């Protein structure tokens, strides 16, 4: 059940109607049943797995609260983390490790291969679950007593399959002190859903067609212009696709009275790689910062340890996306870029200066991010290297049509307006006609640019 299908909107309308028509005490049960139905509509066979992880971490949380600080408490934490990482590792990394082991032992590629189907959203809900257990261990979060509440935290359908990764304290704050959404929440929610749908259907899916054509036949598309346009098309696809999904998730949650964190803040306007990671998949980058980078020591133990921690964090962040050397290299590439920036910047915070140098910095950052996307999108390492070679030799031709470039131009102009003038917030406070006009323009954009018949799945659903 993709967010951009009529099936999903019928489901959402039923959930909203039942939610608001029911007595308050019943509402979380409605959300729970709806969430399991949503998950089951993808593959009901993974519901027991989701339930198992829920039971393990719920029990671990209760246990951690009762066990006094000491080795036993640590053991409980480690057991819980092992269970989560064990499931994640088995489903996501078993075949990757198996093929590498086969290579080391000089055995056939598929010697240890198992036909494993990756459970949808496992990377997201295990990270969310682990953060809860760690927070309880650190004393930053009270253990949840009601298993229904905890189950809902793990499987809440707006963010179950592709985030944003929600922190337990924020979710339970909303759940336990639930307030009906304000008029502004509803306006924002509706606008975000429309915006997300527009980003996905009118932008991401159009760029996906170009990127897919290019990456399907890299050798047949030589030349730097072809390669860059194919890669930029993917860069646009992944941004509009993932941020569109997140916008819809945040919007849907708002309609239900929940508040999810912002996950994207116009990342392609970043003036450095550090700035980029402050704007891209923010819920993951802050998770990695809080639970990995800081746990590794952060920047507290000198320069070299800081660089090491940055590299390790980004390598693991890359590996979180998928089990392949491409993701490891993508993570390592970003880790290296962050470290190099750190060398020059030291411990000074990132400043966002919109001076005459800004366009050059933003362009350079954009180019570096695009080079990184090659590893993210290419089928394997040899194809990544082939694309990279093509990006710097030959001529080729532009794969993007003029109207694609016009779409990029419109998106860039809107991003700058949002960055400098808070256009979105202004729109929420504007008269009804202006708000309705903005909605109508988004719908019109879907009408004339939306990919309507081809079902192109959200990129992050594979993670």
């Amino acid at each position, binding site marked *: 059940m993709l967010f951009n299908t009529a099936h999903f909107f019928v489901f959402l309308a039923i959930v909203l109607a039942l939610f*608001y028509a029911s*007595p*308050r*005490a019943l*509402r*979380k049960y409605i959300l729970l049943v709806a969430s399991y139905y949503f998950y089951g509509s993808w593959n009901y066979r993974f519901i027991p797995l989701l339930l198992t992880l829920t039971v393990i971490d719920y029990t671990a949380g209760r246990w951690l609260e009762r066990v006094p600080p000491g080795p036993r408490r640590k053991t409980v934490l480690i057991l819980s983390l092992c269970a989560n990482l064990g499931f994640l590792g088995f489903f996501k990394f078993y075949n990757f490790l198996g093929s590498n082991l086969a290579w080391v032992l000089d055995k056939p590629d598929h010697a240890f291969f198992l036909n494993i189907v990756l459970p949808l959203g496992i990377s997201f809900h295990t990270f969310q679950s682990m953060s809860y257990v760690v927070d309880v261990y650190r004393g930053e979060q009270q253990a949840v*007593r*009601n298993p229904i*509440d905890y189950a809902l935290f793990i499987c809440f359908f707006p963010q179950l399959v592709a985030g944003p990764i929600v922190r337990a304290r924020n979710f339970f704050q909303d*759940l*336990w*002190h*639930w*307030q*009906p*959404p304000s*008029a502004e929440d*509803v*306006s924002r929610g*509706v606008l975000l859903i429309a915006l997300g749908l527009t980003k996905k259907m009118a932008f991401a899916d159009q760029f996906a067609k170009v990127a897919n054509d290019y990456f399907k036949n890299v050798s047949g598309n030589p030349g730097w212009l072809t390669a860059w346009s194919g890669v930029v098309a993917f860069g646009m696809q992944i941004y509009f696709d993932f941020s569109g999904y997140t916008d819809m998730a945040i919007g849907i949650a708002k309609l239900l009275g929940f508040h999810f964190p912002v996950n994207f803040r116009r990342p392609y306007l970043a003036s450095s790689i550090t700035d980029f990671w402050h704007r891209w998949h923010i819920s993951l980058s802050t998770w990695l910062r809080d639970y990995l980078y800081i746990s590794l020591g952060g920047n507290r133990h000198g320069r070299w340890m800081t660089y090491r921690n940055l590299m390790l964090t980004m390598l693991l962040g890359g590996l979180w996306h998928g089990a392949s050397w491409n993701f490891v290299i993508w993570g390592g590439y970003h880790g290296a870029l962050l470290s190099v920036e750190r060398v020059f910047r030291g411990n000074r915070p990132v400043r966002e200066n919109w001076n005459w140098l800004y366009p050059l910095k933003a362009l350079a950052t954009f180019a570096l991010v695009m080079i990184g996307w090659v590893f993210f999108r290419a089928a394997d390492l040899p194809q990544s290297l082939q694309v990279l070679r093509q990006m710097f030799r030959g001529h080729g031709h532009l794969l993007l*049509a*003029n*109207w694609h470039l*016009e779409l990029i131009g419109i998106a860039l102009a809107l991003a700058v307006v949002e960055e400098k003038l808070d256009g979105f917030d202004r729109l929420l406070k504007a008269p*009804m*006609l202006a*708000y*309705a*006009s903005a*909605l*109508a*323009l988004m*719908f*019109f954009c879907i*009408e*004339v*640019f*939306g990919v*309507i*018949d081809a079902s192109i799945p959200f990129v992050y659903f594979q993670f």
Partner: protein
Amino acid sequence: MAIAPSPPLQTTPVRQRRRIAFTLLAALLLLFGLDALLFRTHFYTSILEPDSSAGLLELVLWREKMAQQKAGDNLVVTLGNSRMGFMPRIVDQLPRQTGYAIRTAGVAGSDPRTWYYLLRDLDPTANRYRAIVFGVDDYDDEDQAFHPDDDIRALHYCIARLRLSDTLQFARSFHSRDVQWEAFRGALLKGIALQSDLQAFLSHPLKRLDYIRLCHRSWPDWTYDYVESPRNMVGLQIDWSTLKASFPPEMTAEQKDTVHGWLLHEAWPQDGRLARFFGAWLGRIVDRYRASRTKIIFVRLPRGPLVRPDYLVKKRSHTIRDLASRPNVVLANEHLFDVLEHPEFFKDAMHMNRDGVERFSIMLSDEVARILGPPGAPAAR
């Protein structure tokens, strides 16, 4: 929802819900307004890609509207798909004139559904022509592998002609649910059906405008002066018992494909879909001209370079023959063009070549004159 004590139940206030509903309604109205402003006015219709289905139909409509202004009272128009090989130039060049100006508004790939919407705007009073001549494959109904009732190309041909009030009728005229839905949404929000046209326009707007200007200067002459291909199908032999063909060596793959697709097949299962489709759309056209001076003439086009034997043809109904009982409807002698059903008059298995088109045009012109009688005289049946 809270387990702990919580504030009393609050719901979204009624006024707030109403405001949201009004806002969404306003957004939808604005969307329809925007769509209508762009795609239901002359604005976008005038910049359609001339080589697209919609653009081609608009050019035909524009050319024939202009011809209506110049032609006198004895105007006849022919309609059909690519098999309707009538060429006005050939008839106009004849030393002996019938007194009728015969034009063609045929569009390759079109069907009676498209003809209906085209005629509605070409002849809004249903009284401009002395006759409208429809070239059809047969007077009996034979379902083929391809079903025109589910041909979504009709949406793309008719898109600029469809009115909001046509939406339901047009969508329901398709057979399968998926195509009905595609037709419905395209007819309702035309931007969906015109997506690729608009995107191409945005890519090269000036080039498009130049091409449109060129078409408006020259397209009527291009089509009027068009000369059909001289290639033929001489040497084609078919063993109907085994459905195998032998081709002369110079025959192209394209020609062979049409033989396989059009001639070499067993009889298709007959479920009456074509009869229903013809009944609905040709019936609608005939109804429109019921009280008109315009004669509706059907002609059976030459069937092909070789004619499929009767045992390979199953015909259970005859919609067009039934229509002949209506006032103003005339069926030309169905064997009139049998003399053209020879390999030397066809360029492939479906379409007549230069010789075929020339003979067909002259014969058709004579037949129309015979049916209508001398200009001013009462028409024959």
